[in-house]
C-alpha cells in the first residue's frame, strides 16, 4: 500500500501570529443569535414581547393622560371627563405636584428645608472618599465629621451636642492610646470604651449646658415628630447602614474570638436579634428602650429607632461577614501571624479586606433590604413616606388616591436601592481587576 500524499500533521516552521478573525457584528446578527436561535427561543421571545406590549399598552395612556394641575381628586376627574376620559383612564399626578414637599420632608418646617438638603449633600460628600478610593485620603477627616454636622442640621439645637459627642470619641481614643502602653490592646480598647461611656453618661449634658452658657451656638430645634416622608426613611436607613457596618464587623470578629466570654456575648446577641422580627424590635424601641437608659434622659424616638434598626442590621451584617471570614484560607491567618503582625494589624490589613471583598454583594443586599424595611416604622406612628401617603389619602381633597402616591414613593426607593446595587457591581469589578 502506498501513501500518496502524506498529510502535513507536523509543522516544519514556527507560524507567525495572525490577527483574530473579524467579528461579525450588527443588530440583525445579534437578534438572530440571542433571540431567535432556536424554536424555543423564538417562542420565548414572542411571549416576552407580547407581555411587554400589553403592559405598555395598558400603562401608557394612564401615564400620558396624567393630570398635573388640579386641586383635588375630584378636580382631576373633571379635567379627565372634559377630554372625554373615564376617571381611571388617566393618572392624577397633581397630588404629587401638590404634596411632594410632604412626601419628601414630612412636617419639617418648610423654611428649614435647606437643612435636610444640606445634610444630604454633606452626607454624600462624606461618603464619596469612602466609596471611591481614588479620592485623596485626607478627605476621610471630613467623612468622620460629616455625620455630626448632619445630625446638627437635621435636629438643630445646640452645636455643642455634636461637638461634645466628638469630644467623647476623642477622649475614648486618647484613653485607648494611653492605656495600651500598659495593657494588652483588647483590654485597652475595653478601657477606652468604658471611659468614653462614663463621659457620655455623666459629663455630657453638664458640659453641653456649660458650654452653651458661655458661648451659645444654637439653631432652631426641630422635633423628631416633625420629621417625615422620604427624609425620615433616608435618615433612619442611611444612619443604620453607616453604623451597622462597623458594628457588624466587630460582632463578626467577636463571634470568632478565642475569648469565650466575648464569643458567647456575640453569639447570644446575634441569635436573639435575628430571631425576632424587626417590627417587634421597633415596638420595643417605642416602648421599652427608655427603661434601659439612665433616669431623666428622655431619648428621641427617631434616635431610638435608628439604634434599634442599626442593631438589627448589625446582626445580619455580622453573619454575612462571618461567611467571608470563613471563606478565607487558614494560610492567610498563618501568613500574617508568622510575620509577627498583631491580631488587630492582621485583621485590619490582611483578613478584613479580603473577607469584606468576598461579602460585598451580600452586604449590599442586606443594606438594600434594610433601607426598604425602614417603611415599617409607620407602625409605630412615624410618618415615613407610607405614613405620609396615608395622611394624604385621609384628606378630603385626595381621598381615594393610591397609585400615583405609591408610584412616586416606589420611584424614590428604587433610585436609592438601584444606586447601591450599581455601586456594589462597580466595586466588585474594580476589586476583581485589582488582584490576580
Amino acid at each position: 500500500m502506498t501513501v500518496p500524499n502524506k498529510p502535513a500533521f507536523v509543522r516544519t516552521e514556527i507560524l507567525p501570529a495572525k490577527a483574530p478573525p473579524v467579528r461579525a457584528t450588527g443588530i440583525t446578527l445579534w437578534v438572530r443569535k440571542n433571540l431567535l436561535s432556536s424554536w424555543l427561543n423564538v417562542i420565548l421571545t414572542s411571549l416576552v414581547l407580547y407581555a411587554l406590549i400589553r403592559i405598555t399598552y395598558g400603562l401608557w395612556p394612564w401615564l400620558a393622560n396624567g393630570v398635573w394641575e388640579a386641586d383635588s381628586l375630584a378636580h382631576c376627574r373633571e379635567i379627565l371627563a372634559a377630554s372625554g376620559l373615564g376617571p381611571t383612564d388617566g393618572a392624577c399626578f397633581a397630588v404629587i405636584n401638590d404634596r411632594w414637599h410632604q412626601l419628601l420632608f414630612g412636617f419639617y418646617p418648610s423654611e428649614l428645608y435647606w437643612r435636610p438638603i444640606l445634610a444630604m449633600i454633606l452626607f454624600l460628600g462624606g461618603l464619596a472618599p469612602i466609596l471611591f478610593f481614588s479620592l485623596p485620603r485626607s478627605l476621610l477627616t471630613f467623612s468622620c465629621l460629616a455625620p455630626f454636622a448632619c445630625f446638627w442640621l437635621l435636629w438643630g439645637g445646640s452645636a455643642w451636642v455634636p461637638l461634645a459627642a466628638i469630644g467623647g470619641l476623642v477622649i475614648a481614643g486618647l484613653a485607648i492610646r494611653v492605656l495600651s502602653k500598659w495593657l494588652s490592646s483588647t483590654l485597652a480598647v475595653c478601657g477606652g470604651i468604658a471611659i468614653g461611656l462614663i463621659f457620655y453618661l455623666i459629663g455630657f449634658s453638664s458640659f453641653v449646658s456649660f458650654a452653651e452658657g458661655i458661648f451659645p451656638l444654637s439653631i432652631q430645634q426641630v422635633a423628631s415628630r416633625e420629621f417625615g416622608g422620604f427624609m425620615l426613611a433616608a435618615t433612619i436607613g442611611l444612619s443604620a447602614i453607616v453604623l451597622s457596618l462597623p458594628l457588624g464587623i466587630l460582632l463578626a470578629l467577636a463571634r470568632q474570638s478565642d475569648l469565650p466570654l466575648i464569643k458567647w456575648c456575640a453569639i447570644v446577641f446575634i441569635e436573639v436579634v435575628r430571631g425576632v422580627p424587626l417590627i417587634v424590635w421597633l415596638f420595643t424601641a417605642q416602648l421599652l428602650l427608655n427603661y434601659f437608659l439612665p433616669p431623666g434622659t428622655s431619648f428621641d424616638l427617631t434616635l431610638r429607632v435608628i439604634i434599634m434598626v442599626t442593631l438589627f442590621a448589625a446582626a445580619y451584617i455580622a453573619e454575612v461577614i462571618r461567611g467571608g471570614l470563613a471563606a478565607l484560607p487558614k494560610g492567610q491567618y498563618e501568613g500574617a501571624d508568622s510575620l509577627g503582625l498583631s491580631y488587630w494589624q492582621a485583621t485590619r490589613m490582611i483578613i478584613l479586606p479580603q473577607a469584606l471583598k468576598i461579602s460585598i454583594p451580600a452586604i449590599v443586599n442586606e443594606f438594600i433590604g434594610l433601607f426598604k424595611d425602614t417603611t415599617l416604622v409607620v407602625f409605630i406612628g412615624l410618618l415615613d413616606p407610607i405614613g405620609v401617603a396615608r395622611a394624604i389619602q385621609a384628606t378630603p381633597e385626595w381621598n381615594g388616591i393610591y397609585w400615583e402616591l405609591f408610584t412616586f414613593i416606589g420611584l424614590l426607593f428604587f433610585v436609592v436601592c438601584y444606586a447601591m446595587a450599581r455601586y456594589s457591581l462597580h466595586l466588585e469589578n474594580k476589586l476583581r481587576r485589582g488582584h490576580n
Partner: protein
Amino acid sequence: MTDVSQVLVASGAIDPQPSVEIVGMNKWYGNYHALKDIDLVVAEGERLVVCGPSGSGKSTMIRCINGLEDYQEGSIHVDGTLLSSDVKDIDKVRSDVGMVFQHFNLFPHLSILENCVLAPTWVRKMPQKEAKDIAMHFLERVKIPDQAHKYPGQLSGGQQQRVAIARSLCMQPRIMLFDEPTSALDPEMIKEVLDTMITLAEDGMTMICVTHEMGFARQAADRVIFMDAGQIIEENAPDQFFDDPQSPRTKMFLNQILGH
C-alpha cells in the same frame, strides 16, 4: 537554662545560646499525641533538614517553633525567649523567625512590594522609604525585582515562593523555617526555589527546613533529622544519613522516596 543544655554547653557541643532549644516537648491535638518528647537544639548558623513520612509531625514541630501551634509539655526557647502563652513573647519570636509555607500564603490583595513592605513598616515601625529599599533589595536577591508591582496571582508558583522567601527576609529574621517549600511546585520551578535557599544557607542564615530534596540536604545542610510517629528517630550528617541510614524505618523511608 535547662539541665540538658547545660550539659551540652559544658561539653562544648553547642554555643552558649542556641537559636532554637526544644526540651522534652510534647504536643497533643485533642487526644492525639502528635509530638512525643522532642529534644532538639539548633545552633546559630546551623542548617537543619527535617524529613520523615507524611503525618509524622514535621509541620507540627516546625510550627511550634514560631508559635503557630501551642504545646502542652516541655519547653521551647527561641533565641533565649521562652515560647509560652504570653502573646508579647510570641509576637517577638515571630518577628525574629521567618516562615515559608508549602502554599506560599502570600496576601493576594496586596502587590508583591506591599506584601514585602507590610510587616517591616507595621511590626518594625520602619519608615516606608527604608522598608521599600529593603524589600527591593531582597526581591533582587530572589531575582524578581521587575515583578514588584504585580499581584501574587499573576506570578508562577516558583516566583510566588521566592516572593514568600523575600517577604520573610524583609523582617531580617535570625532564623528561617521552611515547611516543604517546594512540594507544591512543578518540577521545573523547584530548582529556582532551592537555588534561592542554597544562597541563603551560604550566607550563614540559621535554617530549619522540612524537605525531601536530597540534593539540597547534601549540598546545604549540616545535619538531617528523621521523624516518624511524632518522634525524632535518627539524626546524622547528611552524607551518612542518606548513604548509611541506621534505623530500619529510615531505610524504608529512603527507599520509598528514592524509588529503589
